[in-house]
């Protein structure tokens, strides 16, 4: 794969009208609105340029791209000059050459002449342009005033800023504005004094910079450069793969030097990210080679024994013998497996196959259980498919954007940037969130309505919005009556019309002023294309599924579904949440969302796998814990997931893990769950394996192996070895063969293959005979289930109530720089932005408790107690406190309870009644946690010594 993409200089025009012109005697036809520079590039004529790049709007400052146009005056800049019918352009002649050389002379007269030792040597546009214009001398000398001694800023852990090399082309400033939307950079001063300035002349770390890398990507010189390139030199080849972090699923070029990744560069042709990235995907990949990686299998009899390093053969045989022993002793249903959304589709597929075919039961679940399982349930019930309805690009056609319980700029930053771009173009914004997330107010963005509701009242809010839409006659009856079940629609209208669902009646529940709810509902229903984006703030509640149903009801009632710019869009937390669900990782359904009791489906899998399959659903994650504690569940194979940290009611989870006889963890690191394990099987990072991830827009993207697995095997190979040892043969030679099997068995995947992904780059399912190139927008002409179905969504308050003993509501969330349990990002420099989980508390609540910013505070719930430092902020409302869960020692889940969504058992992470008090020492749980961790690390160390 070539390292450098073709740069057309300016963005493409999407006009359908064509214009024909002549450039250097060649005829060219391009869409109206195309720049002369881009038109020339499209026929292979490269006009010299410095300030132009095709990810940014033209700026016309460098004066290098001047051209001569027949009949025109002067020498216009080709980047800012649009094509015109019959135009005749000359890009090269003596006059132009002289002007360009003169411009380059001025640039070079204030630029260090250290090309041979410069980090951009070989990848510098200034160097290229000097060559292109034939610069042979600089007449001005270097004695005059210059910027050569400007001080470097190395404060950012991932890139350096060397202003002595800056040509003030403004590409970085514009990238920060146009691509990222943060507006952290500016050009300070005028004329010769002009300089790039982060925020108010601060260094990068102290500025508002979010380290997305867009400025580094845009810089044509070595001014902004990755420290990894400064240290290691220019990469020599690249491989396109897919990011292993959030549900956006950005495409990246892994730029390599031999088998070493030098940098990850966002792929300009990536269909989800279009060349943009965030601080995690762009920079936080160093965990893959972190010293904490365990690359040798280990076993032990008891969790208080030292680990014994063993061969793969011994580890696999030991695991198989233990699972056979347990099943012989406790029955077929006493073992099960868990996968993670960090696993590829192929890995999750073979794990569920192992469970169903080799274990002989359906005890398989995945971490989507604790995040988006209500999405699967709610959308299946109403629309007929457990998936989001749109592409990410669809947001660019939305007129009204409603964000409910999601924080895209932190959780899904690249999509958040796209959303902000649309908002800056004028789309209206409704935010429903208990906190002041960044979207509520940030540079050039302001929510039209912020519905700052109380945690746990989503259903009441959604019902109130529906009430206004129906009772004020704003529903799209024509759509709903034609596309949906009429009886269900009429029943729903009667239900939401009841006065008890009105904004006035629910105001005391939600805390949102009735008039604000009414205005938001009117905007959603009448503002044009209206799209809903939601996240875990919707799903992780006791009524998570009900809210998802309510959201689908809103979209159907207003006709906001089935075309671009609208839809129901779940923002999936991790990269492969959608895919792991698609692959049959839930205990009640086979791949493709078909219930295990369905005879025809089961027969199909039985025939393909040559084994009789169980027709009853298996245990879900929380049920596995319950069964472990009552003695009926004894063996767990856990791939890539860290239930000991991520699942609620930590004490309960830890007790369940201790109660099992064989816990097998397959992971990169000795994570929290592995401390309770009897077998450790080393996992492979996303850089070490082949497969696919499916992002939040149903987009299947290739994961390509760029380096050899450190422990010798890709994860699916380990599962295959275990299956073979258990007596159920699997003989895949490559991950592509697993996808081929999936395509044979899953109707929505019949057109998917690695070959197709190589050809198209990515594809959105359904991809089959009816849609060979995939399906960007779902439910276009009819819903997957035929007619859309409205369901009634009665508001039922959570049982987790505040009392005088627990007067505050704790809600949890995530932060930009860290990812999920933090196992990856904590092992990168991302921790400089967030090195501990803190408790956000409103000044009023803090003052009442005598808490100052930075104080240690105890947070006590009905489930347990932990201690964090306090951050006093008005981002949270009085009565609500907030924390993240990226660090195990924080024990955020020590205080969350076992309450869960009624339909799916998705935990109610977002509502826990707590008390907060000032303390001066860690909690008892934290003390015990540290003791246990010290013991486990010592046992690991002993293993290292034993293995030599």
């Amino acid at each position, binding site marked *: 794969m070539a390292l450098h993409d073709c740069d057309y200089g300016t963005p493409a025009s999407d006009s359908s009208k064509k214009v024909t012109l002549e450039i250097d005697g060649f005829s060219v036809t391009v869409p109206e609105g195309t720049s002369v520079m881009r038109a020339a590039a499209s026929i292979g004529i490269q006009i010299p340029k410095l300030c132009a790049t095709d990810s940014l709007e033209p700026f016309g400052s460098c004066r290098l791209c001047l051209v001569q146009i027949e009949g025109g005056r002067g020498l216009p800049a080709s980047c800012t000059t649009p094509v015109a019918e019959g135009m005749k352009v000359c890009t090269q002649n003596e006059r132009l050459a002289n002007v360009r050389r003169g411009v380059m002379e001025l640039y070079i007269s204030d630029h260090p002449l250290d090309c041979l030792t410069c980090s951009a040597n070989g990848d510098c546009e200034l160097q290229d342009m000097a060559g292109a214009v034939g610069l042979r001398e600089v007449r001005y000398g270097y004695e005059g005033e210059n910027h050569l001694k400007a001080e470097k800023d190395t404060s950012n852990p991932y890139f350096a800023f060397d202003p002595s090399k800056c040509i003030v082309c403004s590409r970085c400033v514009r990238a920060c504005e146009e691509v990222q939307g943060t507006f952290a950079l500016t050009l300070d001063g005028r004329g010769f004094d002009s300089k790039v300035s982060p925020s108010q002349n601060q260094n990068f770390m102290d500025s508002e910079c979010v380290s997305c890398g867009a400025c580094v990507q845009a810089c044509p010189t070595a001014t902004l450069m990755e420290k990894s390139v400064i240290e290691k030199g220019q990469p020599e080849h690249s491989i396109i793969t897919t990011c292993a972090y959030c549900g956006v699923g950005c495409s990246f070029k892994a730029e390599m030097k031999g088998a070493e990744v030098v940098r990850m560069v966002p792929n300009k042709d990536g269909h989800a990210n279009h060349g943009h990235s965030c601080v995690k995907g762009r920079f936080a990949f160093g965990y893959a080679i972190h010293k904490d990686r365990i690359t040798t299998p280990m076993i032990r009899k008891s969790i208080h024994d030292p680990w014994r390093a063993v061969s793969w053969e011994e580890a696999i045989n030991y695991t198989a013998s233990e699972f056979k022993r347990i099943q012989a002793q406790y029955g077929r249903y006493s073992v099960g497996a868990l996968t993670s959304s960090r696993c590829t589709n192929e890995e999750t597929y073979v794990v569920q196959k192992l469970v169903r075919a080799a274990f002989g039961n359906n*005890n398989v679940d995945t971490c989507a259980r604790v995040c988006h399982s209500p999405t699967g349930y709610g959308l299946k019930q109403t629309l007929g498919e457990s998936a989001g309805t749109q592409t990410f690009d669809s947001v660019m056609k939305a007129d009204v954007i409603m964000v409910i319980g999601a924080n895209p700029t932190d959780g899904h930053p690249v999509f958040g940037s796209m959303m902000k771009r649309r908002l800056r173009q004028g789309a209206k914004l409704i935010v429903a969130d208990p906190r002041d997330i960044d979207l509520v107010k940030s540079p050039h963005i302001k929510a039209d309505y912020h519905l700052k509701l109380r945690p746990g009242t989503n259903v009441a809010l959604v019902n109130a919005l529906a009430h206004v839409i129906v009772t004020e006659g704003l529903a799209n009856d024509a759509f709903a009556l034609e596309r949906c079940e009429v009886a269900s629609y009429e029943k729903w209208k009667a239900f939401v019309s009841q006065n008890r669902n009105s904004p006035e009646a629910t105001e005391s529940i939600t805390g949102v002023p009735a008039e604000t709810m009414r205005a938001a509902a009117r905007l959603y229903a009448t503002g044009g294309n209206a799209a809903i984006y939601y996240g875990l703030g919707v799903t992780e509640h006791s009524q998570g599924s009900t809210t998802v149903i309510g959201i689908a009801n809103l979209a159907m009632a207003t006709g906001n579904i089935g075309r671009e710019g609208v839809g129901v869009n779940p923002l999936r937390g991790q990269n492969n949440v959608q895919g792991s669900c698609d692959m049959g990782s839930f205990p*009640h359904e086979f791949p493709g969302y078909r219930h295990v009791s369905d005879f025809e489906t089961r027969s199909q899998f039985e025939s393909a796998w040559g084994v009789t399959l169980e027709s009853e*659903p298996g245990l879900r994650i929380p*049920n596995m814990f319950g069964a472990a504690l009552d003695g009926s569940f004894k063996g767990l194979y856990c791939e890539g997931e860290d239930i000991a940290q991520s699942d609620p009611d930590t004490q309960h989870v830890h007790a369940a893990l201790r109660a099992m006889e064989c816990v097998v963890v397959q992971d990169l690191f000795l994570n929290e769950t592995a401390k309770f394990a009897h077998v450790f099987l080393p996992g492979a990072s996303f850089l070490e394996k082949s497969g696919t991830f499916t992002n939040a827009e149903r987009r299947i993207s290739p994961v390509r192996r760029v380096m050899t697995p450190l422990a010798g095997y890709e994860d699916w190979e380990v599962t295959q070895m275990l299956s073979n040892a258990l007596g159920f043969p699997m003989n895949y030679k490559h991950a592509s063969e697993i996808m081929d099997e999936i395509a044979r068995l899953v109707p929505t995947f019949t057109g998917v293959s690695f070959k197709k992904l190589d050809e198209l780059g990515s594809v959105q399912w359904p991809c089959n005979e009816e849609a060979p190139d995939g399906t960007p927008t779902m439910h276009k002409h009819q819903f997957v289930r035929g007619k859309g179905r409205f369901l009634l969504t009665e508001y*039922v308050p959570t049982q987790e109530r505040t009392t005088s003993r627990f007067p505050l509501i704790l809600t949890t969330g995530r932060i930009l720089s860290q990812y999920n349990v933090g196992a990856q990002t904590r092992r990168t420099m991302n921790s400089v932005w967030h090195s501990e989980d803190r408790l956000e508390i409103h000044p009023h609540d803090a003052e009442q408790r005598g808490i100052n910013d930075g104080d240690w505070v105890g947070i006590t719930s009905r489930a347990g107690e932990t201690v964090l430092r306090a951050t006093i902020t008005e981002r949270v409302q009085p009565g609500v406190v907030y924390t993240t869960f990226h660090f195990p020692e924080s024990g955020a889940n020590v205080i969350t309870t076992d309450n869960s969504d009624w*339909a799916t058992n998705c935990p109610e992470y977002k509502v826990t009644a707590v008390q907060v008090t000032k303390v001066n020492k860690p909690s008892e749980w934290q003390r015990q946690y540290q003791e246990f961790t010290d013991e486990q690390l010592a046992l690991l160390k002993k293993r290292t010594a034993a293995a030599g």
Partner: protein
Amino acid sequence: MDIEHLVRMTNDIASFFSAEPATAVQGVVDHIKKFWDPRMRRLIINHYLEGGAGLNDISRAAIGQLERETASLRSAGDG
């Protein structure tokens, strides 16, 4: 498995389906059959047979129906 927790889960399911009283009991039965592991179903049925403390009216009717269906399957040799 904690029976109190299963009772709470059953009542939560009933709360959703009770929005449509005519189909509420069947809704709860279908949901539990579709999503609950058999050992969970056995536990809640046993609890029902022992008096079903804590189950609300719809839950009680649903688990009763589930028990009768399971019993008839068992007597037909499919249970």
